[in-house]
């Protein structure tokens, strides 16, 4: 699914995981199986009976042993090519340390995962990772609910694998396409051959016949109607598939070329002129974007992105299809070569070697020029410290997730005040007594804290927390259910793979998993 380039990125990646309960282990399982290069687990937890009941990667005989070591051992069995190691220390303690080796642990990571960590640890990690521009994905749980949040200043996707309509340039045919179409005479073809003419040629002929093929021509709604009618008369018999395809193509392909909005935004982004320095990480994105902008503004390109060159399958005879395909491929090759000269110029102006970016990478970027995506995030530490939430709070309401989010945050605040999570009687889950009255009264406290938080974020007083949901959170006692951790581990690992391979589009930035309603909510915060 991520091809060789993605697989290489995975195999070169180093993932640093804080936490070692089921959530961490399940996330890692889905990274170890496809072949992540290296992973480290940081946690000082010790295997207890509860771990043997919820965490598949510890063994019943592991009780009393350091949990991080146990899951590393269980996970490494899944793939002998993966290198895994355990650091049996508390995440908080390690992050507070100024020992260079400890700092290197995070600094060397390709990606950092925080699984079931308290807000203080997540905040500290977020600062470290944000500064170093290392993607961080933090996840945690509360019974049937879970939360996933990605934090990285920016993330560029070149290979989004999105479905985009083909760029056939019918309204503005490039010279080779124009002359190829001109030398085809539909009038000398017999019925069989006519029924096998690829539709782009039919549409082009119709445009010419109705004098709509001039340089400034943009067919009006009325003219498009006339085009469709005319195309129908061109056929020898009704119901010919290629003529049907031509009629359909009028809507799609008889409109002026326009660069997708997302690309326009990227090309005019301030970072194009002043990119963040990421040479150490091999991030070539902005350099390539600068080259792309220069290309688009050049006389050669006439304001259009490089042609991708792929055409869809269509009703046609083999020879005609292949010939047409070759014309588009040739133009794409020429555009790619022209683009490469702009890249070379950017490299030389930056004082970099000509092969600093591989020819392959340049070609992939060029092919995907219409599908580029740039995601910008807010930092987790800004969110937790409340600096960015007021601006984003409306997104939570719009996504129907304000109550869930507030309850996660309220639970953390409750724990900071009372030294235990809502609904839980003892400080560890092992020797827990179940107390219905405590659950009910803690739910009431959760409601108050949540409503305070919602007001702090500028959402009160119309926005109140869902009281049944608060009851569910108190009922959960912030426990970890294996099914939810397994599902969340699947989601986190998939986001991790997207962030490492820069393929497919990651979620920006919050996802709440609802195991009661079997759905997820996403919001940008």
């Amino acid at each position, binding site marked *: 699914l991520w091809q060789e380039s993605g697989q290489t990125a995975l195999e070169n990646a180093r993932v640093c995981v804080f936490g070692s309960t089921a959530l961490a282990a*399940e996330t890692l399982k889905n990274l170890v199986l496809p072949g992540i290069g290296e992973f480290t687990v940081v946690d000082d937890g010790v295997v207890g009976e509860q771990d043997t009941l*919820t965490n598949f990667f510890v063994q019943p005989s592991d009780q009393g042993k350091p949990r991080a070591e146990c899951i590393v051992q269980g996970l490494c069995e899944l793939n002998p090519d993966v290198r895994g190691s355990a650091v049996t220390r508390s995440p908080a303690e390690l992050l507070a340390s100024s020992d260079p080796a400890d700092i290197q642990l995070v600094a060397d990571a390709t990606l950092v995962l925080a699984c079931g960590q308290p807000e203080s640890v997540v905040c500290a990690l977020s600062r470290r990772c944000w500064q170093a521009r290392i993607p961080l994905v933090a996840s945690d749980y509360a019974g049937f609910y879970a939360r996933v949040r990605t934090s990285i200043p920016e993330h560029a996707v070149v290979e989004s694998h999105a479905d985009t309509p083909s760029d056939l340039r019918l309204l503005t045919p490039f010279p080779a396409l124009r002359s190829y179409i001109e030398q085809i005479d539909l009038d000398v073809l017999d019925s069989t051959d006519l029924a096998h003419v690829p539709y782009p040629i039919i549409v082009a002929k119709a445009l010419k016949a109705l004098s709509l093929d001039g340089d400034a021509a943009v067919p009006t709604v009325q003219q498009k109607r006339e085009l469709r009618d005319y195309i129908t008369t061109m056929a020898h018999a009704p119901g010919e598939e290629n003529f049907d395809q031509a009629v359909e193509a009028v809507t799609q392909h008889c409109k002026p070329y326009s660069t997708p909005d997302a690309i326009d935004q990227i090309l005019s982004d301030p970072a194009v002129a002043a990119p963040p320095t990421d040479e150490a990480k091999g991030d070539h994105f902005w350099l390539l974007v600068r080259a792309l902008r220069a290309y688009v503004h050049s006389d050669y390109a006439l304001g259009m992105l490089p042609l991708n060159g792929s055409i869809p*399958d269509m009703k046609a005879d083999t020879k005609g*299809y292949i010939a047409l395909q070759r014309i588009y491929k040739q133009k794409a090759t020429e555009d790619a070569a022209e683009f490469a000269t702009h890249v070379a110029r950017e490299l030389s102006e930056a004082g970099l070697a000509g092969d600093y970016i591989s020819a392959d990478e340049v070609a992939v970027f060029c092919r995907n020029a219409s599908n580029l995506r740039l995601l910008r995030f807010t930092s987790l530490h800004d969110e937790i410290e409340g600096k960015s939430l007021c601006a984003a709070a409306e997104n939570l309401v719009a996504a129907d997730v304000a109550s869930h989010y507030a309850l996660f945050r309220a639970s953390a605040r409750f724990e900071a005040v009372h030294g235990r999570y809502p609904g839980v009687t003892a400080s560890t889950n092992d020797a827990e007594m179940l107390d219905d009255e405590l659950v009910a009264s803690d739910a009431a406290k959760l409601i108050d804290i949540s409503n305070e938080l919602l007001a702090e974020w500028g959402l009160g007083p119309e926005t109140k927390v869902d009281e049944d949901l608060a009851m569910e959170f108190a009922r959960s006692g912030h426990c970890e259910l*294996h099914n939810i951790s397994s*599902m969340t581990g699947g989601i986190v*690992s998939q986001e991790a793979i997207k962030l490492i391979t820069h393929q497919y589009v990651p979620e920006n930035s919050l996802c709440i*998993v609802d195991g009661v309603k079997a759905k997820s909510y996403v919001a940008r915060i």
Partner: protein
Amino acid sequence: MAMASPFKCDAGISRYLQLKAPHVEGFELVNDENETPRDLLAKAKVLVIGAGGLGCEILKNLAMSGFNDIHVIDMDTIDLSNLNRQFLFRKDDVGKPKAEVAAAFIKRRSPHVSITPHFKRIQEMSEEFYLDFTIIICGLDSIEARRWINALICGLVEEHGFKGFKPIIDGGTEGLRGNARVILPSVNACLDCGLDLYSKKATYPICTIANTPRLPEHCIEWASVLEWPRLFPDKKLDGDDPDHINWVVEKASARAATFNIPGINYSLAQGVVKNIIPAIASTNAIVAAACTNEALKVVTTCNPYLDNYMFYSGLDGVYMFSFPYARNPDCLVCGKREGSLSLPATATLDELITALKESPVFQLKAPTISHGETNLYFQNPKALEALTRPNLVKSIGDLFESGSTLTVTDPTLTTSLSVSVDFS
């Protein structure tokens, strides 16, 4: 209360089984039969169908969710290519039955769980076998197997009433997408009600494949769909057999060369023949967890269960939503079990059979047809097939009258269908 195996569940699940939950409709700390949610979980007997990518995840989840009486059925043995997803298997296990190795792994990991493997095809097991279970979870990779178990389970309710009521939780994945559904036979939509959700992907038109190929896929289909059956009429093309795929690559490449079409390779050929998108661990994890999460809720009533179809996609962000798929009153399995066809009187019986296979409503595999007392065509046994084969080329107008009702049986169904045929 004596248990078959000692029941253990983690403190988290215990909270959901024992705490009052006034906000959850239908949750009772003791039900009408004097059972607690803990009792329901302790005595639940779960059947897992499939011990592959989804199956391994499902078994792990069940063992980690307090289920302690699990059966798993799978007819396959372990292949080297399974090891990058099916994490209960190791290199030394290649060649051994999946169900047995998976069960042994789970047993070692969770000694208090009773887990029984069946190295069998689902069709080999008796009705009594299925009647014994509380709930069934499917991690299958074929529509036919899904339809078979769905039809069987729907039939059990009809025959045995409540005793035959077995919820099915079904999961499927494809690349970065997947789905899970909760089927309550005779209550909500069964699998066949939503057959169009599983419609076969459109294959290429036969004239393109035969005469005007343009894509490497067309050449591959030519080799696999036309040439293979022509040269090996009695041998089924096996997408998992490298010799078969290599043959396809060779023939397709030769054809592609004459048409100047580039791009044929082994993995493309295999993908086209098997019609597959690669499976990945993360999506399997998500869908399997959704299934076992629903199983826990269905069995214990601790929270509302999925009603009734969940869809997940990781292609662009994270997208998971669920909706109630409606029951189909005309469903061939749980509905009226009748259908109709309209064909010209001059159509042959063979063409009628093709129509039954290709129709999105029926999607039958190898139908056997009779009209009243008359056997029109038998797929099996060999002797009857030979006897009725001459009917295939006869026109249906000669075999019966317009408006007749035919009785049809098929490997995908466990009971017969009535199909009325009108001459158009």
